């Protein structure tokens, strides 16, 4: 029982990342009808927003500290971040420490701008082209984006720690009456899960309860009619693209403490997120979220010791295996609608 619970919990953080990326992919696909292969790159850009903010906050000047000396008795040179000068050393240090959560605020305008430029500058011209062309051009864009990041940040992963308040893990088992030490779960993963839930709920609420969301949903159902009613649906879809980019970016920002960002993390996640979208059903938002969590949890179950002993290698292939089975038995995915990408 406790082992099962542990695996479910372990699957939640990866599942959250899958769900967030798949949600953005589905939003773009549902509104613009574009298959965005560069979505993983947006996830990566988000993660590097966090890295950049951390770098900016830690910009420092070098001062000679007379109180500290090295072994020869010379005064040491100490790097003092500018932020310490402005806010005092204590607040300054905690600002740097909280750079990842702060990066949420930092990344939102950046990701919205990136999404806006991408849609207006490139994707707009590909509405009427075949899906294969859309896949190819966004694939090219993904390569370009990740090479730019590689040029500026290098090829190595950059560790970006979470605030120390969240670094430990807590004993989840004792809360539920299991033996202590059976279910230990890092705090940050729990934070990530709740963060993902808030974002997902926010996106759904936005679509469900605002006039803007209503128009967007109408546009998803029948773009032409909404256009005929005198609504500038293109503008709204562009905004939805920016929001989807923002969701992917935020997923990346918060993922940095779990996995140190490197330039190809986007592609690694993208391949799996596409599988998630297809399993969930192309164009279905709840399907994408459901499939994201489902596959995340399945993946963590498959990497259990007992399962791997029974079926070696299953942890490597489980997601693809599930995708193949689902695609062949339920061609529209778990919750796919009729008539989406059926040609």
């Amino acid at each position, binding site marked *: 029982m406790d082992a099962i619970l542990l695996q479910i919990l372990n699957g939640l953080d990866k599942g959250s990342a899958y769900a967030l990326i798949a949600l953005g992919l589905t939003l773009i696909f549902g509104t613009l009808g574009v298959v965005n292969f560069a979505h993983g790159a947006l996830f990566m850009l988000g993660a590097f927003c966090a890295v950049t903010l951390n770098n900016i906050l830690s910009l420092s000047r070098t001062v000679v500290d007379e109180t500290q000396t090295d072994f020869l008795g010379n005064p040491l040179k100490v790097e003092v971040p500018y932020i310490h000068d402005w806010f005092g050393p204590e607040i300054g240090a905690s600002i740097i420490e909280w750079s990842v959560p702060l990066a949420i605020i930092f990344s939102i305008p950046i990701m919205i701008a990136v999404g806006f430029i991408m849609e207006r500058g490139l994707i707009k011209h590909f509405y009427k082209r075949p899906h294969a062309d859309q896949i190819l051009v966004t694939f090219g864009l993904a390569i370009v984006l990740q090479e730019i990041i590689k040029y500026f940040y290098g090829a190595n992963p950059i560790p970006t720690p979470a605030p120390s308040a969240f670094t430990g893990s807590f004993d989840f088992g004792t809360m539920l009456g299991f033996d202590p030490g059976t279910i230990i779960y890092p705090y940050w993963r729990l934070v990530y899960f709740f963060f993902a839930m808030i974002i997902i709920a926010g996106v759904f609420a936005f679509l469900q309860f605002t006039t803007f969301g209503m128009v967007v949903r109408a546009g998803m159902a029948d773009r032409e009619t909404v256009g005929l009613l005198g609504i500038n649906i293109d503008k709204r879809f562009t905004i939805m693209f920016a929001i989807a980019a923002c969701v992917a970016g935020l997923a990346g920002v918060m993922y940095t403490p779990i996995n140190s960002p490197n330039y190809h993390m986007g592609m690694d996640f993208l391949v799996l997120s596409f599988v998630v979208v297809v399993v969930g059903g192309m164009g279905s938002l709840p399907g994408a979220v459901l499939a994201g969590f489902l596959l995340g949890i399945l993946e963590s179950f498959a990497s259990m010791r007992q399962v791997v002993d029974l079926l*070696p290698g299953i942890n490597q292939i489980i997601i693809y295996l599930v995708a193949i089975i689902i695609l062949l038995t339920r061609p529209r995915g778990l919750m796919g609608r009729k008539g989406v990408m059926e040609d």
Partner: protein
Amino acid sequence: MLGLEKKDTRLFLIVIGLTMLAPFLLNPFPEGSEMAQFNAGYPDLMQRFVIFGIFAIGFNILFGLTGYLSFGHAAFLGVGSYAAMWMFKLFGMNVVPALLLSVVLSGLFAVMIGYVSLRRSGIYFSILTLAFAMMSYALAYSVLATDMDGPDKQGLMQKGLTGGETGLQLSVQDPRILGAKAGADGNTPVPNFFGVEMRSATDLNVGDWVFTFSAGYYFSAFVMLIAFYISIRIFRSPFGMMLRAIKSNQQRLNYTGLNPKPYMLAAFVVSGMYAGLAGGLMVAMDPLAGPERMFWTASGEVVLMTILGGVGTLIGPVLGAGLIKYMENILSKINSEILHQWFAWMPDGLEDLVVTLIYPFIGKGWHLTLGLMFMAVVIFLPGGLVEGGQRIMASLRGRKDKNKKSDPDADVKPAE
């Protein structure tokens, strides 16, 4: 000639000429000169040109003719590599049986994957092929490499069927039934074509120029010419016509009472066999096989090659493969010192500025150039380099023969 139309014969003869004279053509700069680093006429790179050419030609038979975008074609490349490697290990070092086995095995593998994947189309087909390829990669990486750590009873050094992360290598302990266990010098033997070692090469010195003729290159080039000839025949055959019909309107084909599935499966299998052949040749040139050949980036690479060169054209994929491999090997070698040398004639400030501007696009950043080029091709030149060439030719000729386009069936738009 050989049952080809006049135009195709001309193209085929040009390709024969280019591949046979490649050691001269790709070495235009004398040895030791500053430009010598742009020479691509060394055997290793020329072999890669033709091998990836075969891979891309095969991919083009599927994607160019039927429009089905497979994102998992590298799986067949990997299967072909492993098959050829096992043939070398168990049977003998002759490349012919090894290539035969890689073609047959990858063909069988393609039948299995194709039968399942072709039940869906569009993005679903892409995802299915991707999923199968990634599964093959994961299996080759882990499960098929779990049984042993040291040499086993037969003296095979690798782990399991695929050798996992390290991959398969030749060893002097391999039980080669029809052949020496070790070469004359006691090292691992070298793949040969009825006695002609793939590694052997002769140098020809003409003045400052050095031209290398490698047996391996000419063998691969010969295989590529056969592959190219078969692909021309497929393009011009009723079967190729059928595949084009599938691309333009599958529904209509169904209504005429034809079942497109067997045709598509045949195209998929042929294209998988090409990939297997390329994989086998890679091993024949350099006896190593690893799981990374099946990773999705390898599948992505062949997509890039085909699109860059020109989808659905005969020569395009070969051009694309050559261009990407050239960039990978030559462009990536340029570093900032060389750039400074080139722009040394400029005033200092300007020189630094130009070098900083160019630097991100060369050396280790060659992928950036590739990505930008690829995007530009998809956006502005959907027909790839071939279309670009045709447009330039057309504008050079002027308006006179505007109605005489070089590819007549490119203009025929089927009724939707």
